């Protein structure tokens, strides 16, 4: 197992190298000049050239790459072109809202979707099953921002139970934090509930037809024990995979939810950085997301062994 983990960790290096080169080149080859954006609308061409020189963007691409990669290897991701702060500092400020949103969303999604999926499989063909399947289709089909606006209209504007937007750090005011996480997490959880419930239903349904389930029932075990101990445990691998992908997507992809609810997270930082062509920030954020993807996949692979003893590394 340790050997497996070590090999997987070493494999991160070529992945990150490819990502670093790809992102660097893509940014330089796509249209958009940070100097022109920084200078503002009233600047002249000469002023933009001066800013370009000051940022080192007049150097050849390879020189820029060597300088950047050299700094990255020393743990220095550079300074944002815009914020006059180090990229590491910016990311550190934005991690908490994104992590909080990801954790709350996952808790809501897993706690809701797994039982729903199991019940839908158990009551295959029933009204409940049709409801779960119908909800899944709806969850996939309705855009996140529509769900967000509808929830805001009902719970924040009409009923006044929850705030419209904003974020309070967990250490500043825990109840304020929770109050502001409810609507974004529920909004974002809808699609994950749909996905996880559907996968859970399909996996459990497949397992329920196995001989060992029949044997368990023949032994006189209760439905709850059959479902939870035998069916769900054996159906866990695909469910875990979906949850794992969900975590990775949540950390990098909650852009719309963060924008609608005004959460100052990594998703918004990425969009702001892309729109303003803040190269150092985009490069660092993409590298961070790559590391997160690789590590989460590793954790998921390891967790398979907990549910399926046949899997060994």
């Amino acid at each position, binding site marked *: 197992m340790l050997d497996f983990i070590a090999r997987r960790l070493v494999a991160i290096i070529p992945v990150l190298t490819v990502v670093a080169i790809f992102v660097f080149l893509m940014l330089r080859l796509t*249209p958009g000049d940070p100097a022109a954006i920084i200078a503002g609308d*009233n600047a002249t*061409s000469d002023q933009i050239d*001066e800013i370009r020189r*000051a940022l080192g963007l007049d150097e050849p691409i390879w020189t820029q790459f060597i300088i950047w990669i050299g700094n990255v290897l020393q743990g220095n991701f550079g300074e944002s072109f815009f*914020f006059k702060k180090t990229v590491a500092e910016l990311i550190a*400020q934005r991690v908490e809202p994104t992590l909080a949103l990801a954790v709350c969303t996952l808790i809501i999604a897993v706690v809701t979707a797994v039982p729903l999926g199991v019940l839908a499989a158990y009551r295959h063909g029933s009204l409940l099953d049709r409801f779960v399947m119908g909800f899944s289709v709806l969850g996939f089909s309705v855009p996140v921002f529509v769900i967000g*606006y509808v929830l805001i209209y009902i719970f*924040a504007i009409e009923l006044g139970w929850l705030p419209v937007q904003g974020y309070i750090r967990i250490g500043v005011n825990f109840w304020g934090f929770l109050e502001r996480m409810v609507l974004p997490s529920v909004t974002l959880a809808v699609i994950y509930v749909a996905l996880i419930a559907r996968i859970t239903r399909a996996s459990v349904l497949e397992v329920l037809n196995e001989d060992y389930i029949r044997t368990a029932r023949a032994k006189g075990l209760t439905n709850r024990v059959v479902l939870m101990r035998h069916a769900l445990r054996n159906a866990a691998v695909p469910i875990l995979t979906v949850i794992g992908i969900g975590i990775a997507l949540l950390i990098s992809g909650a852009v719309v939810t963060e924008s609608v609810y005004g959460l100052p997270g990594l998703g918004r930082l990425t969009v702001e950085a892309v729109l303003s062509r803040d190269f150092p920030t985009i490069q660092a954020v993409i590298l961070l997301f790559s590391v997160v993807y690789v590590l989460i996949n590793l954790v998921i692979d390891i967790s398979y062994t907990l549910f399926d003893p046949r899997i060994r590394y």
Partner: protein
Amino acid sequence: MKQVMRRTLAAMAAGAILAAAGPALAQGKVLRYVKNGNLTILDPIWTTAYVTRDHGYMVYDTLFAMDENNAVKPQMVDKYTVSADKMLWTFTLRDGLAWHDGKPVTAEDCVASLKRWGKRDTMAQKLMDFVKDFKAVDAKTFTMELKEPYGLVLDSLGKPSSNVPFMMPKDVAETDPFKQISSRVGSGPFIYDDAASKPGERHVYVKNTKYKPRAEPPSGLAGGKVVKVDRVEVIEMPDTQQQVNALIVGEIDMLEQIPHDLIPILKKDKGVKLVDWNPLGHVFVIRFNHKVKPFDNAKIRQAALYAMRQEDYLKATIGDPAYYKVCSASFICGTPNAVDAPDGILIKPNLERAKALLKEAGYDGTPIVLMQSTTLPALTNMAPVTKALLEQAGFKVDMQSMDWQTLVTRRTKKEPADKGGWNVFHTYSVSADALNPISNAYYAANGDKAWFGWPDDPTMEKLRDQYAKETDPGKAKALAAAIQARALETAQFGWLGQWYGPGATRADISGWLKAPVPVMWNIEKK
């Protein structure tokens, strides 16, 4: 025992409530404000971005400022004199001016600040062409010696919009003008709270309790800057619908500018009021690339202008006539230099004339590359209107859609349109930037040094120089009219109408001053 327990619990609950209320009580009156854009750069001399300019007005002070009648009045300056030959200007700072760190504002600080500003701002560069020398006479007095008389000394020093000549401490102002400053120390009515501010989330300004406002009542950007709240939190909220929702439920107090399609929602809400804080508004502009075919030919540019009608643009972008004005004067209707353009140009299209000009110029049907910005709501509908109007006149138009950031990059390219360059695009500016031919960047016609499109017209530059040197207001106005006529003769650029974007506040907010810049002093929260 039960009573003791109950008392203890009651005391604990009261303590908890007080503890929770503690920070709010300590903060006093907090004004929560959402601006029309994210603040990323905190150096108002380094960028011309309006959001940074507004930050500047919070933290820094200016020597002069424009009042609500567009007249320039002393601000940090107590008194000033000009010699009989108009070559030597002497400025004396008023008493009690101090930086946020407690040190006094000196004449040397002001000289250093003006020099840094003079290297970045286009109007300042023009002024510096005439300046022979600055000299700090004593701690509170400095002089500006000119090479020859210059008519726009006060207009330059009292320039309301980007780049504004904000005063900074000498050591800060000596920063390379092409590098951002890292100090936040100013002498303005607010102090930027670096520790509490988080870019992308909120920027916090606290009242500068040591600031000494002028005695006069506030007027526009001039007069006494009396701060009536303890703290301003500028909250960054990217979603415009959410900005409106947050204002309706009272999570924020003020919204700088409302998208026109959301105005009806706020008009219905009794807890909210709309504020037309910027009576001068904004002006739409069409900009031609004079360097590449076919708009290197003045007749073809003229043909394009003859095809245009301001109202078509204003209806397509703003919609409600209450928020736009058709105005053929490039220097903004209702201001001293305003003069109507002849022949109904830009107001009433003359397609026959446009077609005749195209024929005369030998337009060969080469498609015009029209850049359309799709990310700035006010501009998105401009390009489709231009495409339709130009096609009616006989142009072929290749409208290319892109985000604003790509557009501002591409507009720097001087290559032919089919090799990555461009022919025409739209933009807008605050009207305060367009009041005279020097501050109005679209009028510069000095080739590569001019604004994008790079018009090269020595006659226009000569006229602008004459305007800059003219110290008689009557003669200056006549020159402004001649400059506008020249711009139409060469079809240097087009002005496509004025529009207004109101802000909104909760009903308990008052005192938002009418000015070209949204300022936070004088605002009261009940």
